[in-house]
């Protein structure tokens, strides 16, 4: 069982790597970090602030784009192209297929983030000429960004299991934006009354909580992130991804392939 999941995951990774889109985006992100250095030249005293903010935001944004770009096609493309036929005629369970795809995509993003992170640290070193103790927190921010990616991947996979690539992209991106404002959404929900209150609160709690995972400005100001928060965020991301993935499995299990 687990071997098949690993095989599917590594094949998904291989597909992503051979898909030249990935290379372009990495190059783009590196370019952006380079631009950050130029910005640092113009402003005074906040080069570090700008590099960290700009770099991490770029890592986050590009990663989300990649996650959505690839994620939305993971299932629908295989159904469309009928490459699934010969896969499912083997002793592969449908749920193993979904889980394998998830790990493949997540793995791709982890590798991608790793390289981008090196870029950010490189740019930082260039601008500040040395590392300060607060820079270690950048790793925490990167880790949180990876947790965000896990959630986005699971959502993209969920949508891909029943929807066309275009619609999946829209839904996934919308959830990313809304999730980034989830603090405010919960604030809105709190101020409503009656039925609206229950609906709004329900929605606000089911939307992925990206605000808690976004510590970019805190890290830019060299503030520490508590260990409790790291632990809770990790568990939250795992549970949320499990939720979306189990939804994907339930849908895919019932799907008649054309």
């Amino acid at each position, binding site marked *: 069982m687990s*071997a*098949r999941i690993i*095989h*599917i995951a590594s*094949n998904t990774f*291989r*597909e992503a790597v*051979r*898909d030249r889109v990935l290379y372009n985006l990495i190059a783009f992100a590196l370019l952006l970090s380079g631009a950050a250095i130029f910005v640092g030249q113009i402003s005074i005293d906040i080069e570090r602030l700008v590099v960290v903010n700009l770099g991490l935001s770029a890592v986050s944004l590009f990663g989300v784009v990649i996650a959505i770009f690839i994620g939305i096609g993971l299932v629908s493309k295989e159904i469309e*192209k*009928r*490459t*699934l*036929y*010969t*896969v*499912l*005629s*083997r*002793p*592969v*369970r449908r749920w193993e297929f979904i889980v394998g795809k998830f790990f493949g995509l997540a793995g791709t993003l982890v590798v991608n983030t790793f390289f981008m992170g090196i870029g950010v640290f490189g740019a930082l070193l260039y601008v500040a000429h040395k590392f300060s103790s607060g820079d270690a927190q950048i790793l925490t921010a990167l880790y949180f960004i990876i947790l965000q990616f896990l959630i986005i991947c699971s959502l993209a996979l969920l949508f891909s299991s029943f929807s066309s690539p275009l619609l999946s992209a829209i839904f996934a991106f919308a959830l990313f934006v809304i999730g980034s404002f989830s603090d405010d959404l919960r604030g809105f929900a709190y101020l409503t009354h009656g039925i609206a209150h229950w609906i709004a609160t329900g929605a606000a709690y089911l939307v992925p909580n990206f605000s808690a995972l976004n510590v970019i400005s805190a890290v830019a100001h060299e503030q520490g992130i508590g260990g409790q928060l790291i632990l809770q965020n990790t568990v939250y991301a795992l549970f949320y991804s499990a939720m979306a993935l189990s939804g994907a499995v339930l849908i895919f299990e*019932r799907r*008649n*392939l054309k």
Partner: protein
Amino acid sequence: MPAIEILGLEKTYMVGFWRKRPKRALHPLHLTVEEGEIFGFLGPNGAGKTTTLKLMMGLVFPTGGTARILGQEWTDPEVKAQIGFLPEQPYFYDYLTAHELLDYYGQLSGVPGKERKPKIEQMLRRVGLHDVKGVQLRKFSKGMLQRVGIAQAILHDPKLVFFDEPMSGLDPLGRREVRDLMEQLKHEGKTVFFSTHILSDAEALCDRVAIIHKGELRGVGAVEELTSAVQGKVEVIWQGTQIPASMKALGAECHTTGDTIRAVIPESQQDAAIDALRRERMRLIAITPLRTSLEAYFVEKLQHSQTTAGVSK
């Protein structure tokens, strides 16, 4: 133990804008395929052949009925380790090479690591793709893809293989190769279930056939039996340009082609015909009993179903 037992599998799709109209793709099908035989599943396009195969593979879920494959529930995932499937006009991950694809599929089928590499090499040679094993599949021609399809279907040495229109799009040489391969598989003791609308292939290869039309089974039987209904006529071929009066007297239907004449006469007149030709000193080339072709059987079954369908409407 039969290799395949289809017990009333049926599939009805709901079509229309509100998904309210039922469309029957497959009426309840009852069919048995024995081990070690080559079984042909015949029918015109859209008859339900591919639907049946997709149901067997678990790609589509039936609205009724069950099936058993190699004695086990057809939905049991483990049973899939012993079957192979070649879909119609197969698509594969085009960013992989033939070798990588077979390796990946081998992994998924549970072929142990040590065995995989030699098996893949052997398989590539067998389908004639060894030279291009490192080429990405996106560069393959249709015929080459078909061969990859066959390779992936038999790579893990399954007991039972399902081929959906395996000859489609192949040139005559390719078709010959596929036919030969199917014969080989039978010799290896495997069961082959294949669907096609090309009757000559079926006639040449199959032990038994089933005919399906508009989702319904129209006829099942051994090819021998179906075509052995001798019409009670024989075909006499001799060399000559003139038709002897005596032949005409026997009520023969004659055709002349170049310096050869073909005549169809009742079997009872066979001896009389031979005597007539000897008297006229015409050179006898051949006498063959006339058999129904599978095509005729096929057409008759289809027409019959159409008339009954017309009547029942």
